[in-house]
């Protein structure tokens, strides 16, 4: 039974400002595969600086799970491979070159519905990294069988591109990809979409297909909230989520044998003259996407939305929007005594009000959960569903409450602790 949530908070600007089909195609001259130090993504490089690589060809391999690879975002020459301590990926930069063309995989066995072959080709083509497994939000290990998969055709982050726009010319591929996902698990595959027309709904889908319609506001378009409400993740119950456009990418891959070249991206923010909707390669150079569109003056480029974005040079993995913000000058100035006083007592107390309740959708005991989080009470937080959530899910609560330290950082710390305890 699809459940309709109406709660949430309106965060401006919303995503209705983009006209249907107004994409600009822009493949930037440079692109990079990057990882944050906290992700601890240890890799072996499969290419050297100066090598020519075809779009979609594997360029690096995880050291922990050698089956997991990442592929070149475009036909290019490898400009630099920058590894941190312990072979942790910092960045691998590519310069565009047309010559190498696109890498082609053999997907006949996978496309015929063989589940083992499907896994193998998703791993070999790097599309495996589209999946994110909860609890803890890592790329799933190759042998992991998900208890449920959530396909997010819904994104309520401020100024996020409407997945409907990304899918409108790829519905066939989307359906094909969804069918492949339905074969990957015995458990339910939830398709979360807005309250408009059904994106797909052929009657011959297997019985584990579930449609979730949601007309709510932010944060109901985040996978974490939907998973928390419909199929909470737990230690022995991994739940995967994947963006609907990536599912269409899997469908395209199975049809053509080629890794999809582009993703749909919104470029918005207070420092931009007008919002843009572009299709660019993964890991695109954010400066080239903003260049000639920013207002004069200082700006900072965030990969991600204005709520949960991080300052970045390259588009981060899984991000589908770029926020170009005028720095608000917070943290500067002010009397030394007041700022010292403000920093003296951490964490700042959380006072319940309606906005805080709605910042997590209002559907579960929000204040006890946030209090457990800020006091580090992992047991209560686990009972209330912390294992279904990730950093991005608390970005709105951070925004609303101005919490110090940030609730999303506290969540990260708590998840790390729980993971370490489980591993021990």
């Amino acid at each position: 039974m699809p459940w309709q949530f109406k709660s949430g908070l309106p965060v401006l600007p919303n995503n209705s400002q983009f006209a249907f089909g107004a994409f600009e195609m822009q493949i930037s001259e440079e692109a990079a595969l990057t990882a944050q130090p906290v992700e601890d993504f240890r890799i072996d490089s499969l290419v050297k600086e100066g090598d020519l690589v075809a779009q979609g060809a594997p360029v690096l391999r995880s050291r922990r799970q050698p089956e997991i690879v990442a592929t070149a975002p475009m036909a290019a020459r490898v400009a630099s491979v920058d590894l941190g301590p312990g072979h942790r990926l910092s960045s691998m930069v590519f310069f565009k070159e047309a010559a190498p063309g696109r890498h082609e995989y053999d997907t006949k066995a996978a496309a015929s519905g063989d589940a083992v072959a499907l896994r193998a080709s998703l791993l070999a083509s790097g599309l495996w990294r589209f999946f994110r497994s909860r609890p803890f939000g890592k790329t799933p290990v190759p042998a992991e069988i998900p208890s449920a998969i959530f396909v997010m055709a819904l994104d309520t982050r401020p100024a996020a591109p409407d997945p409907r726009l990304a899918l409108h010319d790829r519905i066939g591929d989307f359906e094909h990809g969804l069918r492949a996902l339905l074969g990957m698990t015995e458990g339910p595959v939830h398709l979360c979409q807005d309250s408009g027309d059904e994106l797909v709904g052929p009657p011959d889908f297997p019985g584990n297909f579930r449609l979730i319609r949601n007309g709510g506001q932010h944060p109901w378009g985040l996978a974490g909230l939907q998973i928390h409400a419909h199929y909470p993740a737990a230690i022995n119950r991994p739940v995967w989520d994947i963006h609907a456009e990536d599912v269409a990418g899997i469908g395209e891959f199975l049809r053509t044998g080629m890794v999809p070249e582009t993703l749909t991206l919104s470029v918005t923010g207070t420092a931009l003259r007008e919002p843009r909707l572009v299709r660019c390669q993964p890991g695109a150079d954010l400066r080239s996407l903003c260049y000639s569109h920013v207002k004069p003056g200082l700006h900072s480029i965030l990969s991600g939305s204005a709520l949960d974005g991080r300052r970045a040079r390259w588009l981060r993995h899984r991000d589908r929007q770029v926020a170009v913000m005028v720095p608000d000058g917070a943290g500067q100035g002010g009397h030394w005594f007041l700022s010292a006083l403000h920093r003296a007592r951490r964490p700042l107390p959380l006072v319940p009000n309606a906005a805080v309740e709605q910042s997590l959708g209002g559907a579960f005991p929000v204040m006890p959960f946030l209090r457990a989080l800020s006091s580090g009470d992992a047991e209560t937080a686990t009972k209330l569903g912390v294992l279904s959530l990730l950093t991005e899910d608390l970005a709105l609560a951070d925004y609303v409450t101005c919490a110090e330290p940030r609730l999303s950082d506290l969540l990260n710390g708590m998840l790390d602790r729980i993971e370490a305890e489980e591993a021990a």
Partner: protein
Amino acid sequence: MIRGIWDRETVALMLLAAAFPVFVAWVQADGWYAIGRLIFFLVVAGIWHVIFMLARAQPPSFAGALTALTIAILAPHDLGIFALLLGTSFGVVMAELAFGGWGRNVLNPAVVALAFISFGYPASNWPELAVQIGWAAFPAALIGVLTGVMSLRLLLGVAVVTVITLYAGVDISETWIAGAVVLVLMVCDPVTASATRLGRWAYGAFYAAMFVLFTCQWGDAAPIQIAVAAALLASLAAPLFDEIAISIWLYRRNRRIG
């Protein structure tokens, strides 16, 4: 990157805004005497806040002004300065500042201060609140609910019990003013009220039920004493209501999800 506005002080300012109708009605009824009292309590609470700021690096809060206003409206008139000082200091220090300031406290400082005075000086002359102060509680609750700092569920819990009481024929015509003022100034304090949806219904209903019970059974008490005692019991029970609400939520969730 971008930050919102609902930190502790915003909530405190919204609570002050909600208390404004009550403040105006009270000043109209009592005149300059009211202003003088308010200044006295503001100074006492303010001094304690400054002391804790200097000694313990606790930022002072506008919630202290709400505490002072509440005590100024509700405290007995004929008490000596020493008794008022002692009661206010006990409430502000022991119920609020010793816990780390507003937002970390368990009980409302004004409730504790008034309960202290009520138990310590039982024979004192509690003020008779003018009827317009009671009516001013309605716009106060409206402002609080519209700005999101007071819980509609809590107020509905109170309303349900009140309707049942009136239907059962219990006479609260002499005490309701104190009950309504204590409700908007102290019981609705979001920090010490229950924090879950179901818990707030129970908390509001419990306050109202205690208030009605004391009205019927505690013959020689002043209406303000009755309301303060009910508020004290309700905020002591608030965490229990939260626990019950969480247990019910977990039970239903586990049944639904399996």
